């Protein structure tokens, strides 16, 4: 048993932490969040140069990592600094799916930071149901026609290509019948409606009205993409859990520092026992989150039932603790934490809103129960 990071991962984590501490300051982050693009192309290029995108892929895929712990290690640091750049979208989800399906032609550009991707999967009424796909794909000769709407597709505007799911068989919520395609953003018949997100970054609604793509744009065997999507989703949950962990560590650190500085009734408020005990509870829960994230990361390569049970356990616990940490950190600060200008606001929003992606606390509780019973 050894819970230490390998030397390589420790080095990567250290250099990423240093880079973000120097470059991703509160002022810089606020500027990026308020910018029209919603991310910084310069930071993106620098992260690629540091090898951070490559760390999300295996050697065979053109990277030098790709393991659950590589992902967790990177995303914890991204979370700690409140990074809004789309590593989850381009790296883990869309890029990861291309890698899983052996479509390597774009990956080199992804790892080099030269192209961005988005995974267009969720739909207006799919909520957190991964098999809910209404978008259709009809093949006629060498042409595939896509019709439907994808919802809250993060990084859609910055992406050059989408990895998109569509149904070729089965009914709306069937696991069978879902396929994946590569779709260029400038395809005729495709409409994008972009908007900013409350926790930073941008997303879009994508409407496809009879969008024609060539048969070569098919990424998965017809109707068999679901298990591949589910596994990538599991990796995304490990990434999101680690990111939330990092963000929670910052939120709690800001709170502890504030309790030491803020004076009321003639003494630092951190000397009040009621606040001390609440900080202690948060520190205990942070260790719980770290452990559940390690568990999920360590079981990513296990068989489906085992893997998914750990993944749902992680997302449930992260959601529960996330709400507690965000609310308690705001409350212990008081009004100052409600201001946009103060760093905690950004972290609190990202921590809470992380529960609105990749399945929320209740969704994963239900899933954990189902996976345990089966």
């Amino acid at each position, binding site marked *: 048993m050894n819970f230490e990071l390998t030397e390589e991962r420790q080095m990567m984590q250290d250099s990423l932490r240093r880079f973000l501490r120097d470059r991703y300051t509160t002022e810089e982050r606020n500027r990026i969040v308020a910018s029209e693009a919603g991310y910084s192309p310069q930071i993106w290029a620098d992260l690629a140069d540091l090898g951070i995108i490559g760390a999300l892929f295996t050697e065979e895929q053109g990277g030098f990592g790709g393991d659950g712990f590589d992902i967790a290690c990177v995303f914890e640091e991204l979370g700690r600094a409140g990074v809004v750049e789309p590593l989850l979208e381009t790296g883990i989800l869309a890029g990861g799916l291309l890698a899983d399906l052996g479509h390597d032609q774009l990956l080199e550009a992804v790892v080099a930071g030269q192209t961005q991707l988005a995974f267009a999967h969720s739909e207006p009424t799919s909520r957190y149901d991964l098999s809910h796909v209404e978008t259709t794909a009809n093949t006629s000769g060498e042409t595939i026609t896509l019709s439907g709407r994808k919802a809250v597709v993060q990084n859609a505007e910055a992406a050059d290509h989408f990895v998109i799911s569509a149904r070729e068989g089965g009914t709306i919520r069937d696991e069978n019948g879902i396929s994946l395609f590569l779709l260029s953003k400038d395809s005729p018949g495709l409409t994008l409606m972009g908007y900013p997100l*409350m926790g930073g970054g941008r997303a879009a609604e994508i409407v496809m009205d009879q969008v024609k793509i060539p048969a070569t744009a098919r990424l998965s065997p017809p109707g068999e993409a679901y298990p591949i999507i589910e596994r990538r989703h599991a990796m995304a949950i490990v990434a999101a859990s680690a990111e939330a962990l990092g963000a929670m560590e910052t939120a709690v650190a800001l709170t502890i520092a504030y309790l030491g500085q803020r004076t009321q009734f003639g003494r630092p408020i951190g000397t009040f026992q009621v606040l001390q005990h609440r900080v202690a509870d948060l520190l205990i829960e942070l260790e719980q989150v770290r452990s559940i994230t390690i568990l999920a990361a360590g079981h990513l390569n296990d068989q489906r039932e085992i893997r998914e049970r750990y993944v749902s356990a992680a997302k449930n616990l992260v959601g529960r603790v996330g709400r507690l940490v965000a609310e308690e950190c705001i*409350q212990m600060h008081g*009004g100052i934490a409600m201001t946009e200008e103060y760093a905690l606001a950004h972290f609190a929003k990202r921590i809470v*809103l992380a529960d609105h992606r990749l399945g929320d606390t209740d*969704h994963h509780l239900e899933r954990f129960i189902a996976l345990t019973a089966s």
Partner: protein
Amino acid sequence: MDLTFSDEERAFRIEVQTFLKEKLPARLAAKTRAGQSLTKAEHEEWHAILNARGWLAGNWPKAHGGIDWNAVERHIFEEECALAYAPRIVPFGLMMLGPVLQKFGSEAQKAHWLPRILTGEDWWCQGYSEPGAGSDLASLKTRALRDGDHYIVNGQKTWTTLGQHANMIFCLVRTDPDAKKQEGISFLLIDMHSPGVEVRPIVLLDGSAEVNEVWFTDVRVPAENLVGKENEGWTYAKYLLTHERTNIAGTGFSNAGLEAVKRIAAQEQSGGQPLIRNPHFAARLAKVEIDLMAMATTNLRIISAAKGGHTPGVEASMLKVKGSVIRQEINDLARRAAGPYALPFANETLEGANEPRPGPDYAGPLAAQYFNNRKLSIYGGSNEIQRQIIAKSALEI
């Protein structure tokens, strides 16, 4: 023991409902229901409608243009207004300053300021908190120095709600820096247009700009604007805080919020059925509904006693804690119910531009409301301070 309202009270409730049906502009109700903030003109429009009916100052004595509703009548009015999505009455002049002037103000002050609150000629804001004086309000430092017929005011107030609309501010200022901290404070009325007053907006985490910093640099305030006696402002401030606590439980808001959650959860689909049928979501909803049911009755018990002449003490603190926690839980359920469509940032400029929203209309402001209402357990005496009051009273320390 009789759990029902009297015939008169039921008749009054119907009267309020009828009035709201006839006079509350649908435009304002829609905005309130959608969680959008109102413009200054819209607030004033609603105040004018209430004032025309004589219902703007339900809590004021008749001698000053009010109606002197008892606690039960006030509760019925507030509850019906919340359920009809009427805009909230801006409380600073009506609920806070009005009662202080009526009790401690000079005849000249009453005659001058009170009617102007009713007509809307003055928009008041509250100058209490300072950067260094939050929970520990009595440590405030804004200094007022007597200079002939004037006070010279220097300092900074913060969290001034809707201060951007105000032309007047009532302030707690330090007039005797050498006295024990509660004993050197005075209550001063300051014209926001005086030279040396500067208002700076504070943007909150949900993007809203409802609170401000107010800076005073050598502001000259006529001495006649001192309320009551110099250095006795703390007494008036405490009196004001008891008035700030009417409707502290916010049961009307909670009831309206709970209805909204049910409506949203009936429309949202989860796993092929309406979210409201999902056992985990339904359990969350049921728990908060049970809590609200009990709390609303605690509130009625306290209101009923208040009608009989009992002044609420620790009960108000209990209602503040439980009421804010329940409202926050309802806000949590609402954003949870919206699912992924809680993620888009629906800022006000977007609404103004009339751009289509990405998801269902109801989803837009839910995350923002959730974050914004974290203030409920912070302002007006944080829940930590309220618990301290309750504990001190019980432990007699």
